[in-house]
């Protein structure tokens, strides 16, 4: 048939792969927002500030022999790679999750307040597919934000400090290459630590038509939970708070790796993703879109 040459795909028979277009476009769109770039800029600046502070401190002959300060900060002068671990430890409690809270909180509510949600739905994006694309692109942002911190820290660390073999917490020494791999794995773990919060933010985002309200609520919840996680009186519930095991990524710097807390963290994140992901789906697929 000559017709087949003209029309490679019969109309009315869409290729299932076309469904991925929305996710691709969503991800690109997230990173084209000025706000996203500003958040990534702030995250990139943190390792620079930490690196300079450490450099100035050692220049003055300081270094009180391992007291306070963020994790690994005392090793930074000897090995710039430790700036990656320090920077992740510094940004994980608030900077990184706040950035994720902003992106996740705005994901659906921002479209609703702009009125673009109704046009995506009549396109028709499909409510489940749109929610999945929103969540997947938020996960891409989690990974990108973590990598921005890690890469910025590695660059600053390499510029300001020597690089070399890595002495682990357990005392054994591994090659720089092994250390770099562990840094990459830690970045992946940190990004995975943010998935629970991303699901929570997505759920909040389906509750309101105001992007600002959803972002503020998500970030507010994060801060509240982080504070609750500090009260010893609440130790019975703390194992269920999503940030409780966040700092466990340091266990990757032991030989052999201590897996228990790492797995607890991942399990807890999976639980949050399941619970709040389902809640977001239940809410978004049934709600009236009038904005």
């Amino acid at each position: 048939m000559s017709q087949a040459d003209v029309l490679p795909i019969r109309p009315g028979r869409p290729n299932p792969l076309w469904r991925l277009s929305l996710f691709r476009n969503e991800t690109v769109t997230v990173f084209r927002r000025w706000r996203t770039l500003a958040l990534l800029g702030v995250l990139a600046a943190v390792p620079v500030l930490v690196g300079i502070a450490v450099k100035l401190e050692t220049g003055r002959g300081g270094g009180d022999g391992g007291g306070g300060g963020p994790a690994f900060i005392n090793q930074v002068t000897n090995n710039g790679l430790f700036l990656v671990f320090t920077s992740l430890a510094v940004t994980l409690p608030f900077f990184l999750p706040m950035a994720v809270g902003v992106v996740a909180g705005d994901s659906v509510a921002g479209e609703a307040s702009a009125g673009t949600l109704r046009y995506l739905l009549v396109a028709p994006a499909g409510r489940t597919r749109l929610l999945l694309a929103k969540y997947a692109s938020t996960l891409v942002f989690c990974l990108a934000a973590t990598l921005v911190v890690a890469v910025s820290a590695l660059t600053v660390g390499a510029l300001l400090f020597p690089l070399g073999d890595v002495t682990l917490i357990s005392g054994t020494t591994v090659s720089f290459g092994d250390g770099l791999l562990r840094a990459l794995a830690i970045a992946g773990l940190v990004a995975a630590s943010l998935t629970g919060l991303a699901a929570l933010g997505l759920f909040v985002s389906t509750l309101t038509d105001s992007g600002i309200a959803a972002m503020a609520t998500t970030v507010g919840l994060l801060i509240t939970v982080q504070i609750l996680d500090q009260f010893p009186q609440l130790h019975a519930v703390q194992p269920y708070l999503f940030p409780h095991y966040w700092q466990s990524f340091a266990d990757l710097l032991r030989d052999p790796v201590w897996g228990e807390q790492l797995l607890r963290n991942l399990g807890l994140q999976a639980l949050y993703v399941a619970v709040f992901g389902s809640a977001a789906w239940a809410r978004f697929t049934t709600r009236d879109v009038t904005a």
Partner: protein
Amino acid sequence: MDEPVIETHALTKRYGRGRPAVDGLGLVVPRGSVFGFLGPNGSGKTTTIRMLMGLIEPTSGVARVLGEPMPRAGQRVLPRVGALIEGPALYGFLSGRDNLVRLDSADPAADPRTRAARVGEALDRVGLANAAAKKARAYSLGMKQRLGLAAALLQPRELLVLDEPTNGLDPQGMREIRTLVRDLAAGGTTVFLSSHLLDEIEQVCTHVAVMSRGRLLTQGTVAGLASSVRGRLSVTTPDTAEAVRVLKEHGVNDLVVTDDRVTGELPAGELADLNAALVRADVRVRAFGAQRASLEDAFVALTGEGFDVAG
């Protein structure tokens, strides 16, 4: 007969408590029609369109679009429907072109390989090709409206739903929309057009439905509706007082004088006799005849009131 493009049965929507925004609506939109959906502000036009497009769930009743139930069959129906609902909504930080690319990507039935061509054609169609690279936040209201229309025209559509498409447009823009609607209708697309502008509906629509306070007052062809309302007798004369006296004598009721014009209910008998009577009484008649009823007359006759916002 063809199956209607839109068919609703006892469609009702209540937001929270209180009076339903749409109440027991039974709408039938024939294929190929340009269907005017007319009603004052707050009469439930947008609410109806939201239900037809699956954005909100009806409180009760059924809506069928292109023969399939909504909102259930949305994924099958909506790729064949273009819609402009409650004005355009754009991503201000994206260019006009990228706005369309995004909406086209959202349609799972759209081939990514032909996306650029589709977007380009849609932009051409609404005359935005030259402003396509500009950020949408820098668009004027009319340009935004055009971009919204372009999104509705990304694919060849069987049905186009336009909610007050001429809002915010200048007379030139309104004319262009009317031309576009006529072109699309000529190409076989059914157009469902909501408006609170009577003359807009009268100019482009073949069919009309009239809403008031969430209820359907009537639906049918525009010609049928206008003819269901009796026209009025109209006499243009400088001698209005004398004319009123003569007309009253001949049994014409509800006489109204405006400037040099006297209008009244159309009497049953031969009009020529009335004219002769006026002339015999030395009334200088400039113009005499039966005035065709307008959609506005029909509306007033239907509601027994003006075209006002329902409380």
